[in-house]
């Protein structure tokens, strides 16, 4: 199920502004990769290039290669819609569909992509909600609106919605930054479970979180405001946090800037 991602020489633009430059890395399957770095360094932008969500913004474009197990995601004739079906995404703020019930939210990905029988949907919804550790809390009110849940529950609902379409990679853009510590813990536990089956990439501003959940960590930085963000280094999380190769990484994780 999980697949490896390989990025080579990737630049991303917003109109004429270059947001990230020359990023190359390999993201290992069945592991958690964390992106850290100061605000505006292009972590989220880079994350969004991995499933072609970057180009949803008017004027945004990408140069370079992203390969998912030898398939170039930016190759000619590749359908961005099918890329996003393969590489799911969870956003910073929980965003369940307000017009849909909990059940419909989880089933949305399948239902909006074609016909499925009710029993098939029920199976997937239960499995996905269990996968997101939400089943026990909501199993008696599946037809209530998803927007009525608490913030942490909504975020787990969004994770359930993302894994319901069985992606091979799960991208998470600061999934805990709008949540309280208990909900954060629940999501972190969930991430460590999900990595058995998925390739997970998580952007976080919380360095303890990166240290807790990730296997590998990539540090991004930008030379100055207005300059494009670059990948400074990427290594085993334990190495980044104890003995980084670059001075900038050490300065950042010890809190000297950013």
């Amino acid at each position, binding site marked *: 199920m999980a697949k490896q991602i390989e990025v080579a020489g990737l630049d991303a633009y917003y109109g004429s502004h270059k947001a990230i430059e020359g990023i190359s890395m390999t993201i290992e399957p069945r592991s958690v990769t964390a992106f850290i770095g100061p605000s505006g360094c292009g972590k989220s932008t880079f994350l969004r290039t991995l499933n072609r969500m970057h180009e949803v913004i*008017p004027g945004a474009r990408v140069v370079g290669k992203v390969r998912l197990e030898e398939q170039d995601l930016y190759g000619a004739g590749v359908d961005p819609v*099918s890329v996003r079906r*393969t590489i799911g995404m969870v*956003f910073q703020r929980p965003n369940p569909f*307000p017009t849909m019930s909990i059940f419909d939210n989880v089933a949305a990905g399948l239902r909006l992509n074609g016909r499925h029988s009710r029993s098939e949907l029920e199976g997937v919804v239960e499995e996905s909600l269990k996968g997101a550790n939400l089943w026990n809390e909501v199993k008696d009110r599946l037809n209530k609106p998803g927007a009525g849940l608490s913030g942490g529950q909504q975020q787990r609902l969004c994770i359930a919605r993302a894994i319901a379409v069985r992606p091979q990679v799960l991208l998470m853009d600061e999934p805990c930054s709008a949540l309280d510590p208990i909900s954060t813990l629940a999501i972190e536990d969930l991430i460590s479970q999900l990595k058995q089956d998925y390739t997970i990439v998580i952007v976080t501003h919380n360095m303890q979180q990166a240290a807790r959940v990730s296997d590998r960590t990539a540090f991004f930085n930008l030379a100055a405001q207005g300059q494009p963000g670059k990948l400074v280094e990427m290594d085993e999380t334990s190495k980044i946090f104890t003995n980084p190769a670059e001075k900038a990484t050490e300065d950042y994780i010890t809190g000297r800037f950013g």
Partner: protein
Amino acid sequence: MTVQTGIQPISAVRRVKDRLVQVLVYLAFALAVIPLVSVLWLVVKNGIGRLDMEFLTHSMRNIGARDAGGGAYHAIIGTLEQVLLASLIAVPIGLLTAVYLVEYGEGGRLSRTISFFVDVMTGVPSVVSGLFVLAFWILVLGMPFSGFAGALALSILMMPVVVRSAEEMLRLVPGELREASYALGVPKWRTIVKVVLPTAFTGIVTGVMLAVARVAGETAPLLLTVFITDSINNDPFNGPQMGLPLYVFDQAGRPTDTAIDRAWTGALTLILIVMLLNLVARLITWWRSPARRR
């Protein structure tokens, strides 16, 4: 000069200003309500007398100039058919235009041009749309006076209102929801149909109802396109029809008290119909709102 520290009571000047503004706001509210209430009161007082079964079920056929009785059945049917047809034309076109402007236009030249002309159309006097249909549909194409011609004129008036309100509502849908849908691998058109439009649904219905309410009372475009008749004509595509605004106009122009009474009742009926439609729309939005299921 002494320097005062600490928390002080509200000064007398601020108290007076506060009172003054409060009085002004209430006064403005009262001024706005007076004409509304007095119009409603006058229409109800003068119209309630003839609001009976005969009025609702009979036309003006074979009612002599001085006869009492008679009704507006033909006008009610005409108004309902004309407004329905106008909505069937204007709502889909208006909605699709709004979807284009918000989801596909992206501030390009075409979308700015469309926006401009929609704004211009909002300001078109209603009689001009009637003249346009009269000149184009009836005189150039040689079509007969009919309810449908009236509906065409009304739809021209409805369209910009629908576009504007639907556009506002679609813009209120957070971009996050579209992104959430794209991230699930849902194509753009399905995202619009299944996520964006349902989220904006209640607002769009309200906008459509405002447009309906606006055109239901239009007289001038109907005068030029529907003509006037005293008989029931159920077929909106053929021959002159009646409409409630026309009926009020026609009856109010007659010199007898019975006709004047019918005009008042016609006006009351029109208000009631618009109110009823609004009520139905509210029921629909309530039934569709997520809050109901909570």
